[in-house]
């Protein structure tokens, strides 16, 4: 379990996260929803150890995040960044192989290459293995970075907008991939822009607005009209389907 207590974070004078507390449960899929600039990505980056926080506390399986060594943390937490550009035209396999860094002392071994190929296969992009990464489309790069995260073999997946650059088919594959990992006991936390995807797949929800959490009481599901209006600042209509509600455009 990941426990976040009274977490605050600022970029200079701008306070991005204000006293955020949340519990993220092991083996569950937690979706983080909110408008642009609500602090979703920052929240994820803090948990991933990408940016250092000063106020508050983050505990991962009971351990203070700041006390965990970088290489140890990388074996527990895998982080998929929002977008990525490349300077050098590395082969896709070489990019995925860097995910093995927490397990490699100096040079990657055959086993690491095997694990990387396995990850490429899991994401369904084995055919890209020898292609130059810098020549791929945004969506393909997203999938390569996902394979890199999987090659890392983490127990917790932190995904920042994993669906953004993907076409409908790949969005579906990505969600199935996440479901597949959940069934293996992996914890998934993802920032999602598409609330319907979140409603369909996620178990838990964190709603962020201007750096603060919108509390969900027992009766209020995130697709409740009042909650949606509070979260997105517009009136949204929903339709019920299989005990859940979905936003209709």
């Amino acid at each position, binding site marked *: 379990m990941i426990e976040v207590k009274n977490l605050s974070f600022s970029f200079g004078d701008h306070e991005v996260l204000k006293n955020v507390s949340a519990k993220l449960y092991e083996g569950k899929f937690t979706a983080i929803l909110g408008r642009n600039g609500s602090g979703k990505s920052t929240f994820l*980056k803090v948990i*991933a*150890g*990408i940016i250092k926080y000063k106020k508050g506390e983050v505990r991962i399986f009971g351990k203070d995040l700041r006390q965990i*060594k*970088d*290489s*140890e*943390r*990388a*074996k527990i937490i*895998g*982080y998929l*960044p929002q977008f*990525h*550009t*490349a*300077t*050098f*035209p*590395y*082969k896709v396999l*070489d*990019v995925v*192989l*860097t*995910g*093995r*860094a*927490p397990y*490699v002392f*100096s*040079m*990657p071994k055959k086993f690491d290459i095997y694990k990387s190929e396995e990850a490429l296969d899991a994401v369904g992009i084995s055919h890209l293995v*020898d292609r130059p990464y810098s020549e791929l489309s945004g969506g393909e790069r997203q999938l390569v*970075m996902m394979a*890199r*995260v999987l090659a*890392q073999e983490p127990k917790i997946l932190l995904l920042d907008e994993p669906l953004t650059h993907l076409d409908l088919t790949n969005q579906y594959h990505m969600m199935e991939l996440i479901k597949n990992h959940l069934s293996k006991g992996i914890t998934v936390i993802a920032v999602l822009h598409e609330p319907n995807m979140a409603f369909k797949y996620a178990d838990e929800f964190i709603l962020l607005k201007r750096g603060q959490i919108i509390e969900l009481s027992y009766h209020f599901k995130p697709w409740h009209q009042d909650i949606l209006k509070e979260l997105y600042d517009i009136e949204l209509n929903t339709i019920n389907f299989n005990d859940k509600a979905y936003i209709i455009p």
Partner: protein
Amino acid sequence: MKKRFPEVILYLVPIPLIFVSILFGPSELLSINELAKLLISNSKSSGEDFEVIRDIVLNIRLPRVILAFLIGAALTVSGNSLQALFRNPLVSPDILGLSAGAAFGAAFSLAYGLLPLQISAFISGLLAVSLSYLLAVTYRGISTITLILAGIIVTSFFTALLTIIQFLTDPFKLQSIVHWTMGNLHTASWSKVSSAVFPITLSLIWLMLIRWKLNIVSLGDTETKAVGVNPDRAKLLIIIPATLACSSSVAVAGVVAMVGLVVPHMIRMLVGPDNIKVQPMAVVFGGSFLLCVDTISRTLTEYEIPISIFTILIAAPFFVYLLKKGKIFFRET
């Protein structure tokens, strides 16, 4: 998938090259043929002539060949390491102000002689790099762009200091300072080899051991942190040996321009961008490249043309070609 040039052949290039390079030279005493003949049957020949040839080969050409190879390797490896580190194929060892710093140190030593040339260049080079680094460090870490800008400022600063020394010093010393800053290998000696071989070899071994990390770091700070590698620490562990290799080269041979910038690109065109392959090739190919250029520079004309002029004449058109072909692009994220 393009077929790559067979790498094994490239690894074997230095062996005949070193041999051929020893045979060539502007020796007034002997033609190339005679030298070759005497080298092959050296055990049988004796007498005064042989002693002279022995001296030329062992004490003039051999140290020069070794020095040229070492410096070519050092500049190429540190150039490639810095390009990966800064995610910027336009970076070279010069960008950190290292060359300017080392050149100032050497000029200072040539003009006032407070410290030996090598040590003075080395200290000043390290000082310049540390200065660039310290200027660029902020509470948010080290940004690529800020570091490059800091390097430009430090380069200008040390170039200005160098100009002051050139103004104040007497004409005879000025001549040797100018000659030194142009980069040259004709003063190569065993003492220069022995002063450069240790720091360069040490740095190259270290950069060879961590070469896979270059792949990781070159993907960006966030991506580096995500796999549990501290990018700031990794940068230091790359910058320090790269600086050591480069400033040691500058200390013995002056500023040999553009090798660190352009040769890594040639290697990437041959073996691809993976640093596991690029780094060892940088030693072999970089060393061979400078050895070739030096051999040409000392045989083409009767008088010595500084090697830097040749490296620029070769590298500049190649660089223009790379730019026009779109092989180099710079993207800041």
